[in-house]
């Protein structure tokens, strides 16, 4: 191997260590007991595989006043994510279909208005939305968060589908129209069957965004309705007695597992979503 190759692999390996180190430290720490943490360093391997911290993080750790672990909040996040992802993806697909195959006067303007919606800092809508959720009587509930995530996810999902459908030849749709196929028929028979890749991209993107969201979660939910990111932050910052770093780390891994799993299984689509979001318009 030439010196050049050694240099290349050396740099790549160093970088890989930088990215892997925090995950490694989290896993190692989560498997130790407090005694081992106090006596060793963060890279000292645990003496035995000890899942007590994981058990505590899941079912008995304190997140603020309640001490029931993360499990309830994990399910809250699932309950928020599933409907929000499905509805925003379905609406995004239909919007993308209309914006490319059934254009009307003003449809480009509509798309432009929507695009800007992907860029605004959400701080600018936080206060009015808080009031609105109050008027609607769903402030602090799961329903409120689902609604917020659907609304502010629509711009992204529409963008994904619009950019994907624009490369589908319009002749296909026009021919079907001449044959008498209508709006829904064309969607089901022609558009939907070729949409699998972009459906996966949209679902993964929305899943990751909503699961990882903290801003909406911390502003619009309270008590038992909080999503897992908010609960994790509360757990880490709850200071009663001894700081249990092993439980903190186990909790952080639990919160990260669903999105990590999706990334490892479908990384290709995850990257595609990221880059589609980057190259807008």
């Amino acid at each position, binding site marked *: 191997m030439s010196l050049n190759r050694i240099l290349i692999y050396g*740099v*790549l390996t160093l*970088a*890989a260590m930088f*990215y892997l180190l*925090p*995950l490694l*430290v*989290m896993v190692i720490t989560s498997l130790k007991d407090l005694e081992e*943490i106090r006596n060793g*360093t*963060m890279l000292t391997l645990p003496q035995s595989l000890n899942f007590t911290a994981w058990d505590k993080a899941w079912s008995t750790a304190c997140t603020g006043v309640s001490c029931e672990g993360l499990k309830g909040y994990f399910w809250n996040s699932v309950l928020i994510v599933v409907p929000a992802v499905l509805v925003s993806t379905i*609406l995004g697909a*239909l919007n993308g*279909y*209309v914006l490319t195959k*059934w254009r*009307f006067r003003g449809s480009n303007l*509509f798309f432009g*208005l*929507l695009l*800007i*919606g992907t*860029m*605004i*800092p959400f*701080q*600018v*809508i*936080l*206060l*009015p939305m*808080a*009031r*609105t959720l109050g008027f609607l009587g769903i402030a602090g509930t799961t329903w409120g968060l689902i609604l917020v995530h659907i*609304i502010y996810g*629509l711009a992204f999902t529409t963008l994904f589908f619009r950019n994907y459908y624009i490369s589908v030849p319009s002749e296909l749709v026009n021919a079907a129209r001449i044959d008498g196929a*209508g709006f829904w028929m064309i969607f089901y028979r022609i558009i939907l069957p070729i949409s699998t890749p972009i459906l996966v991209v949209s679902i993964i993107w929305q899943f990751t965004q909503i699961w*990882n*969201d*903290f*801003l909406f979660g*911390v*502003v619009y939910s309270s008590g038992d309705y909080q999503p897992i*990111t908010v609960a*994790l*932050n509360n757990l*880490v910052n709850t200071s009663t007695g001894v700081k249990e770093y092993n439980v*903190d*780390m186990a*909790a*952080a891994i639990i919160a*990260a597992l669903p*999105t990590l799993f999706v*990334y490892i299984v479908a990384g290709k689509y*995850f*990257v595609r979503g*990221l880059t589609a*979001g*980057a190259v807008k318009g």
Partner: protein
Amino acid sequence: MNASSKPKLSFGEYLPKIVVAPTFVATLIFIYGFMLWNAWLSFSSSRMLPKYDWVGLKQYERLFANDRWWVAAENLLIFGVLFIVTCLVIGLFLAIFLDQKVRAEGAIRTIYLYPMALSFIVTGTAWKWILNPELGIQRMFREMGWESFSFDWLVNSDMAIYTVVIAGVWQSSGFVMALCLAGLRGVDENIVKAARVDGASMPAIYRRIIIPGLGPVFFSALIVLTHIAIKSFDLIVALTGGGPGYATDVPATFMYTYAFTRGQIGVGSAASMMMLMAVVAIIVPYLYSELREKKQ
């Protein structure tokens, strides 16, 4: 055409509009309407509860007279510049190294990019533990025999903002790598071959031909990173909580604190309007250049 098919036709004509109507209405109300509503709040005397009166620029005056706001703005500038530049440099170099026909490229790429799948809260929690002086890196080096090693940035008001940069770069640089790698794969090999034939060295080819050709990629990466920087909120909450004191406050945490925990809705909404202006200042040139490209 017979008369009975007419209403059907017109329904068919309206159908696409009916389908996009919910999104259209939602966009108008929940994005543009809310922006205006928020703007109004920033011109009102609202404190604990929103009030719909008019006090002109009073809240902005209060905002600008607030030291904490300027600390937040300065932090965003420091964090933003360092975060963006470091991500771009690391991302570019990793992409170039990865593009040398290395083995296990897919696996390495997966490792570089996985932090992007994590929540900033998870990232913040992990780095808070690693950077903790009593038990983290500092302790590790001291145990290894380097007794005087000191790394207490997390609890040092002057340095804490740089820990946010470290964690942010860790999370987002892989994304720039992915963008740059895609850009490098799009470079025309014939140009590179021709330059080699002319006797140019690889570093020179990268410096003179390939990297300048990545301009549009950098531009997209820059936009996304700037956007992440201006919106950064969760990472700071989880890593430093804005502290020590308010040493690592940024506009997003400032806005949250004033609007939702201190009962200063007017100041909070004024702060969010300033964030919106910052984003607009970036998007407008971006959209302008995009549109110009399309026309050409």
